[in-house]
């Protein structure tokens, strides 16, 4: 029955191929794509049932279709793996993915290229499933770059437009996302090379069909290996490999300092933002670390750096989200920040907590994006929050759903985000004994609540600021899918509720993590965090819905700009990394390219070295007076020279 796991990615692939090659009508494309993801979800459930029958010491299903690459001792399988960790990821991808596909049928109605959209959405689901189901790192990398490609294609959905709100060029944003991701991907490849060179395999676990051994169980074997860095001394091999993986994670999961592509990725249609840039693709970095946890568990690993990057990103992302004026950009920076939580969690070795937050975040952030899409759709494609205001009357259902999502994201008791975020903070304070990280994360949680309060206040409360806008509620399909996600955002915490530990028990065959023992201290910490968040959320709402509401005007600065000035500006531009990269990388790269092309290549190498040598030879020919002007004569000379040498050699031979 193990072959059943291939059905999971096969359905979306079929959907992609049919939509790409056969289907021409919008409605057929949407229904086909949704049905295929639905079938994939069903196949995932079926595979989970089969998985229950696997022995507990090796709880995984594997199936290899063919040997992908074989060159002497380098062997890689084209094979899939289905274990509890993969199962929860696949459930999220196909479950939330399926809902977003159904939502898109309504949202993309009347779009210029709906068939293309659904084809690439299916291709994305396929690539993402390959990423989480691959039984080796190279096939994982196929999914890893595949999702990057789909992200590129879907960010560039409106490739023929010069600008989409808030002033992003879609094709430029698409290329930027691909290239920034590639920087991370290159680090990933380097990690692969290092792993194969030292372990002799790229397989996660033993592959019985091809007889390839796995590397994850051998982490301890290379614990003492050192890499010689020349003048920089020595580096433990494990540190090197895990550092490279961390760089890969910063690219794909939009962590500091490579998160700059994610806010611009909002140029894609809103369902794309919900599926790819919130719920699934950007979490693949977290999955990568959890999958390779035996490497990160080594004392010499780069795990402390993972924690630092995660905490920094959480805080930076949250502060940047405060100062955004575009409804989707707030959520984009919020995603950056929440991914920071997950990365921080896995950096502390709290893998279950990281996965827990990954799953609940997938639900409530998808809900928020879809609800934001419902707002944008309902008011005629405006995204600037200064134009909105008072929309709770025009869009009552969307308002309630958005509010649920905001409460879950802000970590308010008893919504899903409260449980998962609290587990990370508690882990930082009590188990990892890193009070600084815990305090930063609590602070970030308060900032999160503040920006969500601000957003709710600006969008749904206050007076309608643009008389041209007349909101209307979205259709049934869109509302129904949002309600489903909202149920998840309310009760999603159940999956690993203290005392139940369902997720922990389910993932135990992979992660072997002990259950968290809950103490009074944790309860106190959780109470403080949630009270702080509730207060910050109220403050954000009050400021933007009541106190400073009259100062919000279309085209004018945010009211808080008056008080914070440059600090506000810094937050608004995402702490200026784009600005910095533009000056440090992009422009010098362009200038150097021109210099290399026009000066070095054309003049130094081609004119001076090559043509100069040729002219020298021609002059030699002149000097000999044996031949006349012109290139052809030179070759004749050289040929003659060669012939003389041949004859000379034969003469010498005798």
């Amino acid at each position, binding site marked *: 029955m193990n072959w059943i796991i291939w059905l999971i990615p096969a359905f979306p692939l079929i959907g992609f191929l049919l939509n*790409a090659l056969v289907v021409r009508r919008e409605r057929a494309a949407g229904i086909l794509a949704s049905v295929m993801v639905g079938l994939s979800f069903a196949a995932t459930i079926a595979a989970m049932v089969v998985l229950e029958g696997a022995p507990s010491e090796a709880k995984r299903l594997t199936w290899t279709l*063919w*040997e*992908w*690459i*074989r*060159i*002497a*001792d*380098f062997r890689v399988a*084209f094979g899939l793996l289905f274990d509890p960790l993969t199962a929860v990821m696949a459930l999220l991808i196909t479950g939330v993915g399926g809902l977003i596909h159904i939502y898109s049928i309504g949202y993309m109605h009347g779009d210029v290229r709906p068939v293309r959209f659904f084809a690439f959405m299916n291709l994305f689901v396929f690539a993402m499933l390959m990423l989480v189901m691959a039984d080796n790192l*190279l096939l994982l990398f*196929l999914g*890893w*770059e*595949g999702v990057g*490609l789909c992200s590129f294609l879907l960010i*560039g959905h409106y*490739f*023929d*437009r*010069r600008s989409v709100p808030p002033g992003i060029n879609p*094709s*430029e944003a*698409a*290329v930027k996302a*691909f*290239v920034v991701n*590639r920087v991370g*991907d*290159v680090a990933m*490849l*380097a990690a*692969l*090379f*290092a792993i*194969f*060179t030292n372990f002799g395999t790229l397989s996660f676990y033993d592959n019985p069909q091809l007889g390839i051994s796995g590397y994850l169980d051998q982490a301890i074997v290379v614990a003492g290996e050192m890499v010689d860095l020349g003048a920089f001394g020595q580096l433990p091999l494990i540190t090197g490999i895990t550092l490279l993986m961390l760089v890969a994670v910063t690219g794909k999961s939009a962590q500091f300092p490579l998160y700059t592509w994610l806010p611009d990725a909002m140029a894609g249609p809103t369902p794309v933002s919900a599926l790819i840039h919130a719920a699934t693709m950007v979490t693949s970095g977290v999955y990568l670390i959890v999958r390779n946890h035996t490497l990160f568990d080594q004392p010499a690993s780069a795990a402390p750096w993972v924690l630092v990057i995660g905490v920094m990103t959480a805080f930076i992302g949250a502060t940047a989200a405060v100062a955004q004026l575009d409804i989707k950009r707030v959520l984009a920076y919020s995603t950056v920040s929440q991914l920071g939580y997950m990365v921080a969690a896995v950096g502390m070795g709290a893998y279950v907590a990281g996965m827990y937050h990954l799953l609940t975040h997938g639900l409530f952030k998808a809900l928020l994006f879809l609800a934001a899409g419902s707002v944008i759709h309902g008011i005629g494609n405006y995204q600037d929050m200064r134009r909105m205001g008072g929309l709770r009357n025009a869009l009552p259902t969307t308002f309630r759903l958005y509010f649920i999502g905001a409460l879950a994201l802000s970590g308010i008791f008893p919504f899903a985000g409260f449980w998962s975020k609290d587990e990370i903070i508690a882990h930082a304070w009590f188990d990892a004994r890193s009070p600084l990280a815990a305090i930063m994360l609590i602070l970030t949680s308060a900032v999160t609540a503040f920006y969500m309060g601000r957003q709710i206040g600006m969008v749904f409360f206050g007076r309608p600021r643009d008389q041209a806008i007349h909101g209307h509620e979205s259709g049934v399909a869109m509302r129904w899918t949002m309600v489903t996600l909202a149920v998840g955002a309310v009760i999603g915490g159940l999956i690993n509720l203290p005392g139940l530990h369902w997720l922990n028990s389910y993932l135990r065959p992979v992660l072997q993590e002990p259950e968290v023992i809950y103490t009074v201290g944790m309860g106190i910490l959780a109470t403080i965090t949630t009270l702080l968040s509730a207060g910050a959320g109220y403050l954000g709402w009050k400021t933007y819905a009541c106190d400073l509401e009259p100062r919000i005007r279309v085209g004018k600065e945010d009211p808080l700009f008056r008080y914070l000035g440059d600090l506000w500006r810094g937050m608004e531009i995402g702490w200026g990394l784009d600005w910095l990269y533009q000056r440090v990388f992009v422009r010098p*790269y*362009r200038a*150097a*390219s021109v210099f*290399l*092309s026009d000066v070095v*290549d054309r003049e130094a*190498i*081609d004119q001076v*070295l*090559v043509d100069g040598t*040729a002219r020298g030879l021609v002059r030699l020919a002149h000097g000999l007076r044996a031949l006349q002007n012109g*290139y*052809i004569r030179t*070759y004749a000379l*050289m040929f003659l020279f*060669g012939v003389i*040498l041949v004859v000379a*050699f*034969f003469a*010498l*031979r005798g």
Partner: protein
Amino acid sequence: MNVAPLLSFMIWLPALGALVVLALPRERVAAQRIVSMSAALLALAAALGVVFFFDPARAGFQLVESIAWIPSWGISYTVSVDGISLWLVVLTAFLTPVALAASWGTVERQERTFHALVLLLASGLFGVFTAQDMLLFYVFFEFTLVPTALLIGIWGGAERRYAAIKFFAYTFTGSVFLLLGIIGLYLLHGQATGVYTFDIATILASLQLGTLQLDPAAERLMFGLFFIGFAVKTPIWPFHTWMTTAHAAAPSSGAIDIVGLLIKIGAYGLIRYTIQLFPATAAWAAPAISVLAVIGILYAAWIAYQQTDMKRLLAYASVSHLGLIVLGMFALNPQGIAGSVAHMVNSALTTGALFLVVGMLVARRGSRELKSYGGLWKSTPVLGSLTLILVLGSIGLPGLNGFVSEFAVLQGAWRSPGLGWRYALPALLGAVLAAVYLLHMYRMAFLGDAPPELAQAPDVRPRELALLVIMATPVVLFGLYPNLLFGPMQQSATQIAGGTLQYLASR
């Protein structure tokens, strides 16, 4: 196991076709096309026959056909294939009909001569890849220069005469060193063993058995002569400028780019002669050559980004790929060498197909300047999608062909005791730069808004669609099932790498 002189059929059929084409009346274009295409397709069939009879479990030369030529000097007409040359032969056989079809309707004058020259070039290339006699190899190697230079010089663009002369002069200069190397080795072998022969298999056997022992200085001299000859031809940085000039001046249809310039006879020579014959010196020189290779990868990729002429951009992309090819072979392990040969095939496929795309764009707009294009994906979605597959294949997206060979090359370099991560890591940056320059090109041509002249541009015509699908099929196939490529070269790559192991182990 010699069923029929398949290899000789394959080598001489196109030349025969060329003679027939030239004999046809000038105005009977259709007949010329039929004859030339038939010759090319028969050669392709012969090449597939070679694949069929090739035994992948054996390492050495197979399907040997030998006729004494000048016995007193030890020169013979000996042709054969091994795992290294097999796919390059098939690649040549595959691209020749594509090149002929690409020229239909785009070559205005003297179509007859054009077809004849393409066929003669194919014969020359087959000869290069199959010659087992060094002098025969040299003859074929030099012979390919003539049709290529004529094709550029007669049908090229603005700078065609300069480019043709430069191409000829430059690579011919390299050949002088090559000839010296061949004769030198011939004499050294004759003096040591008493057997004067140009047969590589015999010389190789003598080297391996120890009956021919070169002292390090002589071996390095021989290595150097062969290396210079092939380095210019490959080209290895900084000998690459003839190549970018030639691509820029070649006819816009892309026919010459894909057969005359992209097929890697220089790189093939580097493996066959410098590495296989002189493993110890190759291992000694590997770090220095690899530095040039890595510089070439990054330098050419960097320059490619600012090119406004699409053919020039692709020419630099090709130079960058060649850096990777050279790096792979000088990793001197099976992964590196097999990856290197596979990358020769893959790079010729993707870059070649992109040259054809440029030809199709020029047919629609009459310009090779990137800035005259834009938004083509909207008016020509099929062309846009197929081009995207080729672009992604070229920048190494997993699942397509470029990735597999790039990965094998870099994995080989990383684990090679002579090179290691210090070489592989900077080379890896080339993967970022490749995404930068090719996506830049794709974005400028196919995304954004369309200039009014292109708003109604017609999508692919049947001939264009067929060409691109034929080129894109192996791009996907080799990406998902690369063992098709790696399988037959397994033994040969391992054997060649084995020659250097002894030296590397002693260090």
